[in-house]
């Protein structure tokens, strides 16, 4: 950006690009955008543990790395425990000002890595844990995870037998661990995501961010509308943006006039098979979940 332009525009996002453009993500990948914003927020003094997930490919094969910060590729189920180990070593070796970041997919977080995450949260390991949620095991070819929502097609929940179980409410489970900071975020709202990471960076203990990150390949939508779909998820109240700081709830995006879930669902091939009854059911669930969140904010807000 030229100096004269800079003076005209007030930058709301840190200008420094740490992630380099030569990564291996698919077109329109929400997870790639996510890392770009995360590194802008956290800066270069960040050490990242990445378990098996799309990001273990996106960063590039040996001897390349796009991230621009140290990356430790770790076992699928160990994002929290590896990052936790890094955080204790930072303390033991008295290396100041370094952030230990666990960066995992929904499968590595909601499912196989959950035990390690629960342990780190209960102990209060000094890490920031970001789950970029694309609602399935994308790296292995779009299989359902416990973050896959009701109604979605995946390769293990084919159209005739689409997913019937609801999406696991990971935020509430993490909040129940009494973590000092938990937040949801969405790649469609980068300022909010960045602000939350910067807040998390200055809090001691286990910080958890549930980040919504669409996957055009797995959701069957054109790569050009990733951000649009992500924004719709919040505008329909499907994915509310809120934070819980030491037990205090704040809904960061109020959504007074929600759009109908129909709009969101119709844009994605993974929901194409849904009957109007199924869509109605989804709308009811979304409304009920939102209602519940409002009550939580009323009861436990500031």
């Amino acid at each position, binding site marked *: 950006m030229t100096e004269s332009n800079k003076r005209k525009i007030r930058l709301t996002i840190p200008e420094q690009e740490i992630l380099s453009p030569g990564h291996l993500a698919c077109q329109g990948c929400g997870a790639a955008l996510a890392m770009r914003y995360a590194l802008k927020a956290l800066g*270069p*003094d*960040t*050490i990242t*543990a990445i378990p098996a997930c799309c990001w*273990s*490919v996106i*960063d*590039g*094969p*040996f*001897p*390349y*790395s796009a*991230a*621009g*910060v*140290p*990356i*430790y*590729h*770790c*076992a699928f*189920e*160990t994002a*929290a*425990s*590896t*990052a*936790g*180990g*890094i*955080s*204790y*070593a*930072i*303390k*033991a*070796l008295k*290396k100041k000002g*370094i952030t*230990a970041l666990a960066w995992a997919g929904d499968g590595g977080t909601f499912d196989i890595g959950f*035990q*390690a995450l*629960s*342990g780190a949260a*209960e*102990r209060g*390991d000094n890490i920031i844990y970001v789950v970029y949620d694309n609602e399935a095991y994308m790296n292995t070819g779009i299989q359902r995870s416990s973050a896959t929502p009701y109604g979605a097609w995946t390769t293990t929940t084919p159209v005739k037998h689409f997913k019937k179980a609801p999406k696991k409410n990971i935020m509430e489970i993490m909040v129940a661990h009494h973590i000092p900071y938990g937040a949801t975020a969405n790649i469609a709202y980068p300022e909010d995501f960045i602000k939350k990471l910067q807040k998390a960076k200055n809090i001691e203990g286990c910080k958890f961010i549930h980040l919504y990150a669409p996957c055009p390949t797995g959701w069957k939508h054109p790569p050009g509308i990733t951000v649009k779909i992500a924004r719709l998820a919040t505008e329909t109240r499907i994915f509310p943006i809120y934070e819980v700081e030491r037990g205090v709830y704040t809904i960061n995006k109020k959504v007074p006039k929600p759009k109908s879930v129909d709009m969101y669902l119709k844009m994605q091939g993974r929901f194409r098979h849904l009957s109007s009854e199924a869509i109605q059911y989804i709308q009811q669930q979304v409304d009920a979940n939102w209602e519940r969140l409002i009550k939580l904010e009323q009861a436990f807000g500031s």
Partner: protein
Amino acid sequence: MKKVLTGNFTAAYGAVAAKVNVISAYPITPQTTIVEILSEIVADGKLDAEFIKVESEHSALASCIGAQALGARTFTATSAQGLALMHELLHWTARGRLPIVIANVNRAMAPGWSIWADVTDSVSQRDTGWMQMYCENNQEVFDSIIMSYKIGEHRDVLLPTLINLDAFFLSHTSQVVDLYTEKVIDQFLPCYQPAVHLDVKDPRSFGALTSPEYYYEFSYKIQQAMIRAKSVIRDVGKKFGELFDRQYDLVEPYRCDDAEIILVNYGTIAGTAKEAVDVMRDQGISVGSLKIRYFRPFPSEDIEAVLKTANKVGVIDRAVSYGHAGPFFTEIQACMSGTSLPLYGFVAGLGGRDVSLHDIENIVKHMQSRKPEELIWIGIKDD
């Protein structure tokens, strides 16, 4: 300084003497007191380290991996089911070339639940790229922990070590252990200087997607490191002897020079075997004992050099590779394959069954009177 200590306390003091920076461990009988004492020592500030009270052995090793990658010297201890739960991460450690040390209290695998001695837990981790060594007594536990960091961190090696001590026979048995002095240990084992580490000033990725173009060579380098480790183990053992009056090697022959029959063994059976050798020598039987310290790297040359003068060799295994033979037996068979030496395979002491002096005498009697046949199970109740 000499103290009377159980094997578990000795292992804990070994980690303290090695001045580890991060300990991460989970309790399991019979390893538990290692975790208990270390957590107390760290909490009391007697060791400047972090202790991570993880929720599983899986996280214990994963967090050691993260910490070691940042440049910390790390330690954990486990046993049986715990080591099995770590299995995937054992590969991650060795392929990541992280010289972590684990004290593993050898215990039988369930079911049925057994907390007693058996080396199936460790030998079944054979191909993970870890160095594996077996201790005869508590002094060897202490000495091996200190030496293992020096060996593993050596630039020619950069591999982790699994130190094995038999459940109860060592873990819960008190023996006199010389803990030496801090100054001399520090001189022998200075602070950890990693070859490479996670460094924000020099951002690299570790363990990235690796094509067939590179993976093959990475594996080759581990094999080369294992081969080089043999001479590093010898050198470190010698240097240790100069400073502490106790020398170590890959193997330890006992009265083997002129022995017609040699019994190959490892772990606590080695102590009983030496005693049996003395008793039988007094009766005029020409017998010796060869203790194997290292299972990986496997000291084929050293073993061959000792066994080549014997008339008969018996191998006593506290494990069995089901469908074949004892795990050490098959290794000995392979390294003596160019000879016509009669080899006898014995299984003994699984699940903590006692292996007595009498059992060892019976093994020798068996070898004196019979030809080698299929695997012999000592003291089996065959009905």
